[in-house]
């Protein structure tokens, strides 16, 4: 399909969508309306489980099973990225050369690193009390580690980042979520039901299983984001492109997946 035809097909589809969407919008309840039946019930359910942050309650209590699915998407996306960005047979690694960092940049990044890490862990731990939780805090904590890449160089980052450990951490985060759910079953309730004592409202111990699931998600997100960024940084910093694209039969993505999984895994372990 030529670019012109494609554009016309899009314009026809877009016009149809615009009309239908606009009609649907006029059928929606008015913006800012006070009546929210689901919201009212969610707030009530959250308060009855002593969880101050209703969004955390919705995610880890009312919709805990859906969040398991969401966490699994995260897990599989990271897994897929790791598989896709492995070092192929015709690629080789080059040790990155340390770059000169301006002393002010170095001081600032080293000052911010522990602070950002602490904020990340704080946000994970206080997910049931204040805005935040495992997903948000996990991203903050994981990116905090990468301030070391800015402050020093890639090798310093690799030293604080044993990749195997983070890969295990990601799996452990996913497993902890499932185990928390199964523990509820063993306690004689439904999968992922909130069976722990609800604790005192608006304190760290409130919310029953909400802080536990928050921590599991936090662990998975920290590890997942570190592994993801490590793979992309590897591509940018370490892995050299093969000299020429010779069109060998091992092209098109499917070829390298076939027999050399073990080899690639070994290479990466040795490096880590």
């Amino acid at each position, binding site marked *: 399909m030529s670019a012109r035809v494609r554009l016309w097909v899009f314009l026809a589809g877009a016009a149809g*969508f615009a009309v239908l969407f606009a009609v649907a919008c006029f059928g929606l309840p008015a913006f800012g309306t006070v009546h929210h039946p689901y919201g009212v019930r969610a707030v009530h359910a959250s308060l009855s489980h002593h969880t101050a942050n209703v969004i955390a309650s919705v995610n880890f209590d009312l919709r805990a099973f859906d969040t398991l699915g969401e966490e699994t998407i995260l897990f599989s996306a990271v897994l897929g990225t790791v598989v896709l960005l492995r070092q192929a047979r015709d690629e080789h690694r080059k040790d990155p050369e340390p770059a000169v960092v301006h002393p002010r940049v170095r001081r600032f990044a080293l000052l911010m690193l522990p602070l950002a890490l602490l904020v990340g862990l704080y946000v994970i731990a206080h997910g049931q009390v204040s805005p935040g939780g495992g997903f948000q805090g996990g991203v903050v904590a994981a990116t905090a580690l990468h301030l070391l890449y800015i402050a020093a160089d890639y090798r310093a980052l690799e030293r604080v980042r044993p990749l195997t450990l983070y890969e295990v951490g990601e799996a452990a985060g996913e497993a902890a979520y499932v185990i928390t759910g199964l523990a509820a079953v063993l306690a004689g309730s439904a999968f992922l039901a909130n069976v722990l004592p609800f604790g005192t409202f608006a304190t760290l111990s409130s919310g029953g299983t909400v802080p536990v699931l928050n921590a599991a998600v936090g662990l998975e997100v920290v590890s997942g984001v570190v592994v993801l960024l490590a793979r992309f940084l590897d591509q940018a910093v370490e892995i050299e492109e093969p000299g020429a694209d010779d069109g060998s039969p091992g*092209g098109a993505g499917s070829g390298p997946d076939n027999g050399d999984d073990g080899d690639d895994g070994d290479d990466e372990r040795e490096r880590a």
Partner: protein
Amino acid sequence: MTVLPYLVAGWIFLIGVYGLVTSRDLIHAVGCLAVTQSSTYVLLLAVGYRDGGTAPVFADAPTDSRVVDPVVQALALTDIVVGATVTALLLALVVQLRKRHGTVDPDALSELKG
């Protein structure tokens, strides 16, 4: 009584799809997909808004205060997490395509290999 926030969501969606359709660069296309997806955040938050509502966190606010709808906010959170990881996966695919085919132009990727 306005539908403008809903229409903005539809407009962002269409802009994103327009970018996808006319894209000559897969990295640009992945970015456009992220734009398309962000229209759902706008729609969800617009649906959940309440006049005079505060954040649905009762740590400091009294428990009878009027809050915006927490259900759609939780859905938006899910959306963001899934979107970010899927974007990472797609970018990894683009990296491999660039390596194997030497191009990120989707129109140049018609040949079969391997």
